[in-house]
């Protein structure tokens, strides 16, 4: 092999490897850019009013998004109540009971459901809950988010239950525990850290969802009138404010974006923290 050829190969090697590093660096920079920009712009506009006041009418400056924050929490509560139990139980089924063929179908369907675009989930919740009663409602928004929570919970629950060594199940059964007692008293507690993490991540993910809420929970510039009425939420507020022509609304959109991002990132970090701790035991 001739000398220049080796030089050339070494040069290619150096250039390409550098490029991969630059790419990775660039992607990480995007994260910091997002964070930095949001903190800069959002931090400017964030004040106490944002958390305590209702939105002001169009044209007036000031006001806050207290109703949207509470609305988002309410929607999450609904989603958790509807999605988490189904996801948890189905995950238990797959890990502890499932037969071969049926489990395969359930897993496949779960993945399918997980891949359905959120806007389509919104249409579904609309057809299911909004159409029959002819008006938007917090409940419909909760249903949409709840459906999205299910597949994420199922897969993480199953994964962490499978991580529990079989010897634990055998030990409990050999002591005379029935199967479900084994699951409830030994397997679930052993996997609880991971399962909780999965649930938290599922909720964090739907907390930022906008598309399925547009025509289910809709939006509301006032405090909601109850579960059967339209309700405000942070992501939808960000959307409406961002595409509006008013500078003051833009500022508030930044503030809301910062709050939402912090909410999501903190729950992600929290979830990882729980997982790390539960592994350390």
């Amino acid at each position, binding site marked *: 092999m001739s000398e220049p050829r080796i030089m050339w190969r070494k040069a290619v090697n150096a250039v390409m490897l550098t490029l991969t590093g630059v790419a990775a660096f660039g992607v990480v920079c995007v994260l910091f850019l997002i964070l930095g920009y949001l903190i800069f712009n959002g931090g400017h506009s964030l004040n106490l009013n944002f958390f305590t006041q209702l939105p002001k009418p169009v044209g007036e400056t000031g006001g806050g998004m207290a109703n949207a924050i509470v609305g988002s929490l309410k929607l999450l509560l609904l989603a958790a109540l509807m999605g988490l139990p189904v996801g948890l139980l189905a995950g238990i089924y797959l890990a502890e009971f499932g037969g071969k063929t049926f489990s395969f179908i359930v897993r496949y369907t779960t993945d399918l459901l997980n891949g359905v675009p959120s806007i389509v989930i919104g249409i579904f919740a609309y057809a299911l809950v909004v159409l029959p009663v002819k008006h938007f409602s917090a409940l419909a928004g909760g249903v949409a988010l709840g459906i999205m929570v299910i597949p994420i919970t199922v897969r993480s629950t199953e994964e962490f239950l499978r991580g529990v060594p079989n010897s634990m199940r055998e030990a409990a059964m*050999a*002591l005379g525990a029935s199967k479900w007692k084994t699951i409830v*008293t030994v397997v679930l*507690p052993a996997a609880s850290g991971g399962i909780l993490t999965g649930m938290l991540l599922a909720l964090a993910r739907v907390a930022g969802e906008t598309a399925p809420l547009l025509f289910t929970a809709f939006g509301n510039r006032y405090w909601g009138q109850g579960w059967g009425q339209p309700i405000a939420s942070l992501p939808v507020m960000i959307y409406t404010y961002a595409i509006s022509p008013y500078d003051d609304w833009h500022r508030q959109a930044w503030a809301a974006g910062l709050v939402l991002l912090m909410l999501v990132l903190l729950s992600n970090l929290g979830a990882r923290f729980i997982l790390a701790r539960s592994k350390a035991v």
Partner: protein
Amino acid sequence: MDSVSGVPQPALSVKPFRDPVHMEKTTTQPTEQSIRLEIADLNFFYGPKQAVFGLNLKIPTHKVTALIGPSGCGKSTFLRTLNRMNETIRNTRVEGKVLLDGQEIHQMDVVGLRRRVGMVFQRPNPFPKSIYENVAYGLRVNGFKGRLDELVEKSLRRAALWEEVKDVLKRSAFALSGGQQQRLCIARALAVDPEVLLLDEPCSALDPVTTAKIEELMFQLKDSCTMAIVTHNMQQAARASDFTAFMLDGKLIEHSVTSKLFTTPTDPRTEAYITGRFG
């Protein structure tokens, strides 16, 4: 003759009135001994593959019976049929009889059976709970109402672990050493006061000192418990058991008093195994 041992058998036609299952090996068993577990014509299958072949064995009360044999000979599988643990494995099938105090175990409630027939596994498998909760577990799931503290202490004492852990009962069981964990698992099994304790190579993951402790423990437990231990370690069988059964390829080859089996085996295959010629 497809007999389970080379011990000469009486002519079967002499006692035509007796149940053949009981009759077959009467003489291979030590006489004048009450029998806790009686296994008759036991076959076991993993799917289409047979792992235990027509096994007959009697396990005498308050004695230690050791099961030896090369790995893969079906001794662990056999042990696990005695408290129906194999039922937790998909696609398995069992044929034949297992009588606990004369009662067919396959007709018992499986939960009740496992309470009466406890098990200690190859690797220590404490629950991710405190030491105390580990021992109390069996009592709690069996709906025991009463003085848990006392029973936990008693079980830990029986497992010779009390002195070492009495001050740290609330600590995670994972904080214990391997040998302590295994004794904790024994204490956990003893807490529900089983009549029979099945030990599936309980010392294979332990060092010699701890192994000695557990053998000592087995000796003490004989007063209250019938034990069956699977071991790949012949010295352990020779030291710790009263009776020894030798298995090969899923079949019981020979079964007799331990001292006899190790000194004057009747079957050439047994002799080959205990003198280390295979396995």
